[in-house]
Each structure stands twice: as structure tokens, then as C-alpha cells.
């Protein structure tokens, strides 16, 4: 098969490329140039392009760098900034997968005659008896990335390969080591590629939107503290609220950006019984007419799965009823629905 490997310059996609070559595929490496600004070592810096190119050289495959920075700004960075302006907590890596890797890149790969796109994500693609595919958790539970890939549907799953999903991270590094790949010992990338550790989220957003100071009130509406940027406050946050010490821990339970007000409360106020998701994507269409089917819902990249029942509402909304009261999920966060280890869909907390 002719396979395009999205090579980030990290160890996972390096090994993904090596495994595909070993399996006899015709492989071409592509590094996506997404972010033109400052970056730590994130996925887009020149040194990562260098690493990807050097690994491709070592493997004897062609390597191309494709620029999608305009699309990245439009579909990932601008919405990220806008979401914060509205007090919503976005997940830019998921939008990047949705709009860039598994849309823009996949379409171009197809246009140039490649039959599949492979990435170094730690997740698996399994085929069910009825021939439909599902995304499943990676073999390495601690490194599982199925959460950030829930946006893949049949059309994408059928043209995607995840060659390291069956391996643990340690096995990936061992393979890279055995092949002498220069990325074998490279640290895992962290966080959002366009947010640098030096300037942080505040520095990044502060240059793009006006950050507004806000007051912190308790359940009775009394002012108990203050924040200097209400746009940066997240549901469930405990620190940085200017609260007096002592007493039971209090958490952010509501953020109202237009009113520049953050409400705090005890942990019980943070709990909820159900959750509404919008922009829902189903891996293989909405679940058949079996309302209230039991699933687990994962509410953050490394969150633990919570048992729940789901009730689809129309085509792209779903009500998630937790089996026991769970912590609320910040608006804008993705919630991914699993049957066992397999993703059936997901959406964004409304």
C-alpha cells in the first residue's frame, strides 16, 4: 500500500514509518508545518522538521514539508483564542486532528495517490464483525491517545493507520533504539505546540485578547477573592483565586466572562448528574435505537472513564447521564464515549 506517514519529528511517528517500511509498504514522510510562531519543541519548530527529515533519510524514504499554517491559524489558533475570549476551555489538539491531520492532510494525501495516512498516535483501529471500524485505546494505557482522535469516522478510519498503537511507549523507544533512530531518546512533546513554556497561556492570549480582571464570589454572592484574568479561569480550578486560606476547599463552579465573575463553591457544587454534548461525532453513525445504552465517558485527555448512559438528541447532540454524580466538565472540553476500549463517538461539553 502507498502510505503517507505524518512525521512530527518525534519517536512515535519515526517508529511508525519504520514499521510500515518493514511491513513492505511504499512509504513517504510528510511533516506538517502548522505554526509559524514561537514554539518550545512542539510539533512545528524547525528542529523537529530537521529530526523528521533525518529519520526519513535514515529510513531511505522521501520526506516533504507541507505548510498548512493558514489553515492551522484559521481552524485551530483563532478558535482557541476566541473560545478563551468567551470563557470557554477549548482543546486545540482535537481541532488540529479534526481539521488538519485527518481532513486537510488526508485529503491531500488522497489527491496525490496515497492510499492511507499513518500517524504515531497511541491508539488502535479495530474492525468489527460487520466490517465497520472503531478506534480503540492504545496498548499502553498511560499513553493512550484515543481521546484526541474521537473525531475520526468511518471515512477517516478506513484510510488511517496507527502502527504504534499495539506497542507500549517503552517498546516504541526500544524499537527506535534498535534501529538506531536519532529520535529514540527524544522527550515526549508536551501540551499545546503553540504555547511556549516561557510565556505560557497567559503570555500567548495576553497578546491577542484583552484579559479582564474579575471578582470571585461564593454561593451567596459575596465577594471572596479576585482574579486578574477571568478568561484564564477554568471550571474546577482551586488555586490563583485570591481566596483566604483555611476552611473547606473551594472550587470554581462557574465562570461568567461578560460579568467578569467567577463563582466558587464546595466540591459538591462541582458535581453534576448529567452533561449535554454538542457537535457530536459518531464513529459509525449514532447508536441504533437503543436509548440509554451504557458507555463510559472520558472527559479529559488523561481523565478516568466514568460510567454513563447516553441519549442522543437529534443528529449532533447527546445527553450523558452519569451513573453517579461526577465533577462538571468545563464548557468547550471534549467528552469521548467508549464501549469497552472502543470509541463510539464524542462531543463538546455545552
Amino acid at each position, binding site marked *: 500500500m502507498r502510505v503517507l506517514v505524518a512525521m512530527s519529528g518525534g519517536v512515535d511517528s519515526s517508529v511508525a514509518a519504520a514499521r510500515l517500511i518493514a511491513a513492505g509498504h511504499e512509504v513517504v514522510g510528510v511533516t506538517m508545518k502548522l505554526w509559524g510562531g514561537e514554539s518550545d519543541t512542539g510539533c512545528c519548530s524547525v528542529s523537529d522538521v530537521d529530526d523528521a527529515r533525518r529519520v526519513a533519510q535514515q529510513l531511505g524514504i522521501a520526506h*516533504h514539508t507541507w505548510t498548512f499554517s493558514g489553515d492551522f491559524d484559521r481552524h485551530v489558533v483563532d478558535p482557541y483564542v476566541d473560545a478563551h475570549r468567551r470563557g470557554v476551555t477549548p482543546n486545540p489538539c482535537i481541532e488540529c486532528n479534526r481539521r488538519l491531520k485527518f481532513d486537510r492532510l488526508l485529503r491531500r494525501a488522497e489527491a496525490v495517490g496515497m492510499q492511507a495516512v499513518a500517524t504515531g498516535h497511541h491508539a488502535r483501529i479495530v474492525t468489527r464483525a460487520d466490517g465497520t471500524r472503531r478506534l480503540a485505546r492504545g496498548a499502553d494505557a498511560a499513553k493512550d491517545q484515543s481521546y484526541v482522535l474521537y473525531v475520526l469516522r468511518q471515512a477517516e478510519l478506513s484510510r488511517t493507520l496507527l502502527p504504534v498503537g499495539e506497542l507500549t511507549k517503552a517498546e516504541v523507544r526500544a524499537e527506535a533504539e534498535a534501529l538506531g533512530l536519532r529520535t529514540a531518546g527524544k522527550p515526549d512533546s508536551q501540551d499545546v505546540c503553540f504555547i511556549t513554556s516561557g510565556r505560557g497561556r497567559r503570555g500567548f492570549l495576553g497578546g491577542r485578547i484583552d484579559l479582564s480582571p474579575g471578582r470571585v464570589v461564593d454561593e451567596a454572592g459575596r465577594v471572596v477573592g479576585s482574579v486578574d484574568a477571568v478568561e484564564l479561569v477554568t471550571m474546577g480550578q482551586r488555586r490563583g483565586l485570591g481566596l483566604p486560606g483555611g476552611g473547606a476547599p473551594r472550587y470554581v463552579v462557574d465562570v461568567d466572562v461578560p460579568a467578569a465573575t467567577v463563582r466558587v463553591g464546595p466540591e459538591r457544587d462541582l458535581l453534576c448528574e448529567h452533561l449535554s454534548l454538542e457537535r457530536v461525532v459518531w464513529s459509525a453513525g449514532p447508536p441504533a435505537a437503543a436509548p440509554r445504552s451504557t458507555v463510559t465517558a472520558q472527559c479529559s485527555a488523561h481523565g478516568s472513564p466514568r460510567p454513563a448512559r447516553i441519549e442522543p438528541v437529534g443528529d449532533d447532540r447527546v445527553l450523558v447521564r452519569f451513573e453517579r454524580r461526577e465533577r462538571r466538565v468545563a464548557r468547550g472540553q471534549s467528552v469521548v464515549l467508549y464501549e469497552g476500549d472502543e470509541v463510539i463517538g464524542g462531543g463538546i461539553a455545552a
Partner: protein
Amino acid sequence: MMAYRAGRGGGRGGGCETGPVLEHPDRRDRPERLTYLDHAATTPLRPAARDAMLPWLGERFGNPSGDHRVARAARQAVDEARDVVADAVGCRPGDVVFTSGGTEADNMAVRGVHAARPGPVLCSAIEHDAVRNPVGLVDGKTVAVDTRGVLDLDALDDALTPDVTLLALMAANNEIGVVQPVEEVAELVRRRAPGAVVHTDAVQAASWLDLRATVAGAGLVAVSSHKVGGPQGVGALIARPGTPLRPLLLGGGQERELRSGTHNVAGIVGMAAALQAAAAEREATAARVGGLRDRLAEGLLSAIPGAVRTGGGRGTPRLPGTLHLCIPGIESEALLFLLDEAGVCASAASACASGAHQASHVLAAMGIGPELGAGALRLSLGWTSTDADVDRALRVIPAAVARLHGVHDRRPAPAGRP
């Protein structure tokens, strides 16, 4: 530890009369010859350049600045090369400052003049980044071009205040190949800003135009060795007498204190030989390659629906080797990928260090929108180009474009849209 090999491509084949045999460097080796249409990026080493360099990569050596027979011999090689370069460009040997290439020469021109004589600096809006970025650094301004890609003389007239110290205008553009009116502009500058220096980047023009005539009015001229069939990593800045100039690099004071650093003797010798060889065959090669280019242009324009030739027209001369097209409805990166797979080496003409493409400031300056500019394709022919190259390009390129157009029409719905 892997044994060091310089690339993968050179193992088989060997040379032939007309130039190097080019082979696929990747594991997907294919037997056919490559069709190399990226001579504006770099052109193969001319045999005369290689022959001139070989002794300096073998038994001959020496630091030209020394005071003994080995040094003197190296010095003589550099001085003789200087004579050859001076003859090719039309200057005195003492005006030639050898550099590490065109980029250094351009940087030295802009920053060196600005350091010697601070004041307003101008450059055309289509200069290479090697000029544009230094001009930006000294807060210079750009002067517009028209839709042909030629400097707008009215705009220049408006911008040319008497205090301007430098105007940079390339002899011919690297992306679209359009030749600029350097002599006319130099005359205008002499009248309007008599104290200003004209710098011309003649990197692309050197293979094709007789610089002795076309850039005689420029006080500073940048040339690059590898664009004319010499080795990479060497070039020169011509600084005519009286040009105010400070060095970029300080050190041992080589090149009349203007460019410190031990001479790249092999490179300098190779550059001179390449310039001489290019000059000797200039008219014949320009006529031959111009004919190939015209056939390629006609064939592609008739075979690719909607394709437009970029710039030029209305009697505007272009370099004989360059063909720039904008093809609607496709993306350069996808087209270049398909061409590469078919063994056709071409360019979108604007790339950064990571190899990624960026929007072209040249096309933007000509008023070409991002949509049409997204499908930019530069095909550049050179001294090794043949009829077979054109035949092959005419088979491969329209087919690749058709494929991209076809696939785009039935692209799958994108993933998980809201």
C-alpha cells in the same frame, strides 16, 4: 556508526558528455533519468569548473594571505580568478570582493552601505529575501512593481528623495524571471538622488545576460557561483570605485579589508571557470534554452485549462530559462509531490529553511491573489536542459494537474464538522 556517505544518489551511472547523470536519491529508485527543471535553485556543476577546482581539492593548497611559495601559488589562483570574474561582470579586478555566496553579497551591500552612509534605503517589492530582509532591518521601504512584475518607475520617482542612500533592484527576478530596467533606474537615481548607490542582485541574471552591459550603472552587483554552474558556497560582491561600504565580517582584513576570512580558493577558482564557460556559450545557450522554454510554455498553457503565465508581457523580457505559471484550483505542494514522484524536479519558487512553502511576496506584489498564487509552479531550465526534458515535462505535468483537478472534485466530506 554509519559510514559517512555524501547523499545516496551518486553511486551509479557516472558522468557523461553533457553533464551529470541524475538519479532518484530515494529508495524508490526508478531507472529513468530525472527531468531537472529547477536550475534557478541551483544548476549542475560545469565540467570546466570541476576541472579547475580538482587540483585545489587534491595536491594544491595554500592560504593566499601567507608569505611563502605555497601561499603565493594560492594567491595567484585567486587573483587570476578575480581577473576572470571582473571581465565577466565588467569591472576592475580590484572591485571584486569574494564572499560566501549571493546572500552574503546582498547583505553586505545593504548593511555595508547603510553602515557607511546612514540614510533612507529603498528596494523593489520583488527582491530576494537576501535583500528584502536586510532592507527591512535598516527600516528601508519597498517600491511597487506593476502587474508585469517590473519596477514601477512612477512609484520610484515618488519614493526617490534626494537623501536616499541606497536603491536595490535585482537584474532579473528569481521567481518569475522578469528582467528589470536596471540601467534606466540607475539613470533616474543619478538624477534624483545623486548620492545614492544602486545595488543589483544579478544572481539569476548572470547565466543569461551580459552583465557588462546590463548592470553597468550599478555601484554594487551581487553574483553567485552555483547559479552559473560553479560550486555552492561562493559568490562575489562587485563594489565599483567610490562606493561607500563597510565590511560585515571583521578579522584578518582580506579582500581589501572588506571581507575577512581565509579565501575559499577551490570555490573561487571554480566560480571563475564557471562564469567564463557560461559567458563563452551565453548567446548560443540562451537561444537554445529559450527555444526549449517557449515550447514548454506553449505546450503547458494549451494543455492545462486556466493556467496563466505569470508577469511579463507587453515586450517585457524574461530570462530564457524561467517559466512561471499559476494554475487555478491546485496547490503547489501537491503538484510538486506528484512531479517529484514522476522524477520531474520543479519548484513553487518560495521556500523557507524548513523546506516548507510560504506565500510568495513576489506574486503578492504583482497583485496576484492567494488563491491563484497557491498554484504557483516555477520551471527553470539551464545549460543541461534538453528536448527530452521538455517532452517529458509536457507528458507529466498536465497529467499531474488533471489528476489533482479530478480528485478535488470528488473529495470526501471532511471529518466531523460541526
